[in-house]
């Protein structure tokens, strides 16, 4: 369960206006939301709040049932991050690691046993269609492969919340469809999924509730894109 009450966020101190202002919405566990809006509206910024990369400067935010205080204990934030998966717009893969080691990271950071990690990694890489690219260095992947690696890394630890920032940019049409099916499946299995995009055709393909941002404000919240 995700809930924001009158959440605002400004970058740095008071030098500029808030990037996000007075956001209030809720997403039930297992819910799917498109996060829409023009470029610069604040979609990435909102995802960074939900991923706890930044904390709200105002208002109250509840992530996976836990209300995050402004001065939350760092250890509590770490525990909460272990339950979130994030696909960044620029993938943020580790250039020095292979596909498998990149994908294994969330599990290694949670100190899972190594044999369990190997099994999970191979299974998920097969699922995203990278079963043949396990040992390839991340820097030698195509854009689409990097994106699928990032997606595999975001879901390997079975998080309760998956966030994705423009995840279909580098994907071909057929792969984008496959990805949408994947997100729908995750949501059906009880994972909350929030996907930021400005790709209208994508949204029409998977009709789900949406949040529409404009200049940092939530201007529309609807059941499906008209």
């Amino acid at each position, binding site marked *: 369960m995700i809930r924001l009450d009158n959440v605002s966020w400004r970058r740095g101190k008071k030098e500029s206006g808030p990037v996000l202002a007075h956001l209030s919405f809720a997403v039930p566990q297992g819910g799917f939301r498109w996060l829409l809006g023009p470029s610069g509206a604040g979609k990435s910024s909102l995802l960074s709040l939900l991923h706890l990369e930044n904390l709200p400067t105002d208002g109250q935010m509840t992530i996976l049932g836990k209300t995050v205080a402004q001065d939350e204990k*760092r250890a509590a934030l770490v525990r909460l991050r272990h339950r979130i998966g994030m696909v960044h717009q620029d993938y*943020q893969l580790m250039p020095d690691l292979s596909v498998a080691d990149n994908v294994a990271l969330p599990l290694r*950071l949670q100190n899972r046993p190594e044999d369990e990690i190997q099994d999970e990694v191979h299974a998920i890489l097969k699922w995203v269609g990278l079963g043949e690219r396990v040992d390839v260095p991340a820097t030698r992947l195509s854009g689409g492969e990097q994106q699928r690696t990032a997606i595999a890394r975001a879901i390997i630890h079975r998080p309760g919340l998956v966030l994705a920032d423009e995840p279909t940019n580098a994907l071909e049409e057929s792969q984008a469809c496959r990805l949408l099916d994947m997100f729908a499946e995750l949501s059906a299995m009880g994972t909350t999924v929030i996907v930021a995009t400005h790709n209208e055709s994508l949204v029409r393909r998977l009709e789900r509730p949406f949040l529409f941002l404009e200049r940092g404000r939530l201007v529309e919240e609807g059941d499906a894109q008209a």
Partner: protein
Amino acid sequence: MTRPFSGRKDGLSLSEALPDRSLFALVAMMGFLAALTLAGASGARALSARWSGGAAQLLTIQVPDANAPLAAQGGGSATTTRVQAVLADLASLPDGTEVHQLTPPELARLLEPWLGETDSSALPLPAIIRVKLPPDASVPATLEQALSTHVPGTIMEHNARWGERLRALANSLLACAGLALLSVGGIATMITGLATRTGLASRKDIIKTLHGLGASDSYIAGRFAWRTATLGFGGGLSGTLMACLPLLLLLQMAAPFASVPLTTPERLLPQNWQALANTIPSDMLCALALLPFVAAFICWFTTQVMVRLWLLRLP
């Protein structure tokens, strides 16, 4: 199980972010300096201890006109010579005191550098008496006074006065060594801090990603600190080993002053390592052995603090 913080496949690639060359070499130099300083400090301490221990117990007494009869003073027997009177007075010193009047040959040997081989029996030499008090005894404060009134002209030299001065010198040397060690530690801290800052700057994005993936502060700080501590240990060890050669040479030169007789220089060969090792003060040996660990700790601690402070910018 993987080891806690080393060799993890987490993309930090610290062997590149914190390369061996700079930190290792600089810490090695610091270790070298620290080892030499420690050796100096240990030497000063040993000398200070010896001077304060031995010298304070030694007295030298000169009796001019030693064989002249003691000027009759009250009931003194007319056949007592002045030196006999002094020796009689010294008999009252605490048990275990060694009193030794130098024999004419000993006296001649003592004076040879000044008088040459001339027959010194014609010269009016004073009698010299060496007094060695037992370790826990001290010179009675009234002794000098009593001797010079009883046997006028007697001169008492108390070596402790020299000992005091030498000990003060040794103590100030020790203080300097302490300051030098503190400076070396401070420089090592700064070097580690700079290296860590460079490492953090070059891994900024990767750390942010790791943090977002759920790496705790202690994990990231531990990874960096483990790396700098390893380099610090290696550097400290190399520096200490490098310092061993000059230290052995110094030790050889200091050997004549040491209480344990050392081998002659040409015998300083492997079969005498044992003998040589015995002459190294054990406290210095301990300090030298600890040096790599202290270097590792300084690096570890500095890096832990720096990384944790840096991470505070990420929630």
